[in-house]
């Protein structure tokens, strides 16, 4: 089933609903004319706890990569004690293959601001920081202008229609990062917000208890927050009418994949771009119906389902459903950011693995030895294989390296190592023949000390 009307992209022309050539930045007035900020007004007529419950009952799951239920986060917060409580908005979008948040920031920043305001109201958070990556300078400027419009129209500030939150004037600020993938990890983001290097923190304590500046903090992705307004507006049942439903007879505790989602398609297709679809749409549908098929009529070889950390799926899974269960079904890490990277038959998978390993070795923050050293060695070994100097031992070494990272619980602080592991391991395993044909055979003598 396909989405019948655009939701997040209601004001942003996107195929197949409208020609993107007609895109323009939506300013405050146009946002309001098209129903904007009605959801905020509706929310503030409800007690904050009810707003959380509504979002919780919609079973909205985080769109930033982990798929954590958004409504549940608000319930983790301790009761207000009169001191500050924060919302950190994750606009650090740096996962290779991901460019969906940028679409919202570029054209409909108020949709995000409305979600931010509702979240602040529901969770009694007085200050929101939008952490936006340094490379999105143009978007940061648009966002800043939208924030100023929102202040002028009493969304935030001392005349805010929300009144005081947590006993304080609600404020919203744009905070510009400085180029570091790891600041997208939620606690790396908090450290960076505090003016330090973006080293992820050991959890617990979780941010809901001690986050930014040691205070309770909710962290959400841009798309997750943008989804909140439409949910308040149209209700949880409407939201749940879209997406992959729970298997027949499954209890409500089984997580499902409800709602629409922005899918960014890049790589070897005829019309790459961001497409809004229901969760559970298939890879083949995104490629054939939305992206106008493979470029030059080439054959599909592999795809990354959701940002490079998720690993690859092969032609065997061409019709796989893109929902939060894809990890189990297709032997990859998960849906991630739903940034689909499509590769055609001519793609050199060794080069892909080398590119990916380089990314992670460069972006590892360096705190944990398995991640810092492991990603660097993976990169070196893959460079060697690509240059034709690799041996079969190198392949074993690669798999051993990747499986020592992230797989062993507790050896690394954040999920970057896991992403590196899945990305490299799935490429090597699923395209083993290709790797094998590139290395010179050499009998591998296992060292007991190593294994």
């Amino acid at each position, binding site marked *: 089933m396909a989405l019948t009307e655009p939701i997040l992209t209601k004001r942003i022309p996107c195929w197949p609903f409208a020609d993107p050539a007609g895109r323009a930045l939506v300013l405050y007035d146009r946002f309001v004319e098209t129903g904007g900020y009605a959801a905020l007004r509706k929310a503030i007529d409800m007690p904050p706890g009810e707003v959380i419950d509504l979002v919780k009952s919609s079973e909205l799951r985080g769109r930033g990569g982990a798929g954590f239920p958004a409504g549940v986060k608000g319930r983790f917060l301790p009761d207000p004690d009169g001191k500050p409580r924060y919302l950190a908005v994750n606009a650090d979008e740096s996962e290779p293959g991901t460019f969906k948040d940028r679409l919202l920031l570029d054209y409909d920043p108020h949709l995000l601001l409305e979600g931010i305001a509702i979240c602040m109201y529901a969770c009694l958070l007085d200050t929101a920081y939008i952490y936006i990556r340094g490379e999105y300078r143009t978007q940061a400027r648009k966002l800043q202008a939208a924030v100023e419009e929102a202040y002028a129209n009493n969304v935030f500030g001392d005349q805010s229609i929300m009144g005081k939150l947590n006993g304080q004037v609600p404020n919203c600020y744009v905070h510009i990062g400085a180029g570091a993938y790891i600041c997208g990890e939620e606690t790396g983001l908090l450290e960076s917000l505090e003016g330090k290097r973006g080293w992820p923190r050991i959890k617990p304590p979780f941010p809901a208890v001690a986050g930014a500046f040691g205070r309770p903090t909710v962290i959400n992705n841009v798309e997750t927050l943008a989804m909140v307004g439409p949910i308040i507006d149209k209700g949880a049942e409407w939201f749940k009418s879209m997406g992959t439903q729970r298997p027949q007879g499954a209890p409500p505790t089984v997580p499902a994949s409800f709602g629409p989602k922005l899918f960014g398609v890049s790589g070897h297709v005829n019309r790459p771009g961001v497409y809004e679809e229901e969760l559970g749409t298939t890879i083949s549908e995104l490629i054939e119906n939305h992206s106008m098929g493979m470029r030059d009529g080439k054959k599909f070889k592999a795809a990354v389902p959701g940002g490079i950390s998720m690993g690859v799926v092969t032609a065997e899974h061409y019709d796989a459903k893109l929902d939060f269960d894809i990890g189990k079904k297709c032997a990859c890490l998960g849906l991630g950011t739903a940034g689909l990277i499509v590769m055609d038959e001519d793609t050199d998978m060794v080069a892909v693995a080398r*590119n*990916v390993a380089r990314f992670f070795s460069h972006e*590892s923050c360096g705190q944990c030895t398995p991640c810092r050293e492991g990603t660097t060695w993976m990169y070196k070994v893959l460079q060697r294989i690509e240059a034709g100097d690799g041996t079969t031992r190198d392949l074993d070494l690669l798999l051993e390296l990747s499986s020592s990272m992230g797989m062993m619980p507790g050896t690394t602080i954040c999920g970057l190592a896991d992403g590196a592991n899945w990305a490299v391991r799935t490429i090597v395993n699923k395209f083993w023949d290709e790797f094998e044909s590139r290395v010179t055979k050499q009998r591998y003598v296992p060292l007991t000390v190593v294994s």
Partner: protein
Amino acid sequence: MAWIMKNSAAMAIDRRDEPYLTDRMKAELEADVLPRYPTRQAATLPVLHAVQHEHNYLPYQAVEEAAAFLGVSASEMLDTATFYEEYWLTPKGKYLIMVCQSISCELMNHGQLLEMIQDKLGIGPGETTDDGKFTLMTAECLGSCGTAPCALIDETLHENLTAENFDVQIGALQ
């Protein structure tokens, strides 16, 4: 990243009497930026951005001044400054070209862009032209994978690049 060594050990520390972080800048930051945060240290990134915007890079003296301004030690300020890709502790060219080298851009042949720049300007990644006009860097995913390959020239994103159209865009700056 922080653990990838930068040559800060060999960094020449030029000192001058005139401060980099001027009183006017301090007053502006004090009025616009500091009230946003509960601690002064939290203004580190915005302050470093402001100084770099003014001087095109972060002279060590400016890092010290920023540290004094925010009440943190110079080493802490340097610790933060060296962690982030965007801060330059040595001068860079007038225009900074950042070509994305992540997966979607490599699939769409970002290599032709680097080759074209090598031919046209005679610089590889990490280098600056002799006239100080251009610095070339490779970047990781710029969040524009649907219009790959792409590159930033300073703050402006250039999309759907080919060696030919990028050549023209760079030529316009020469």
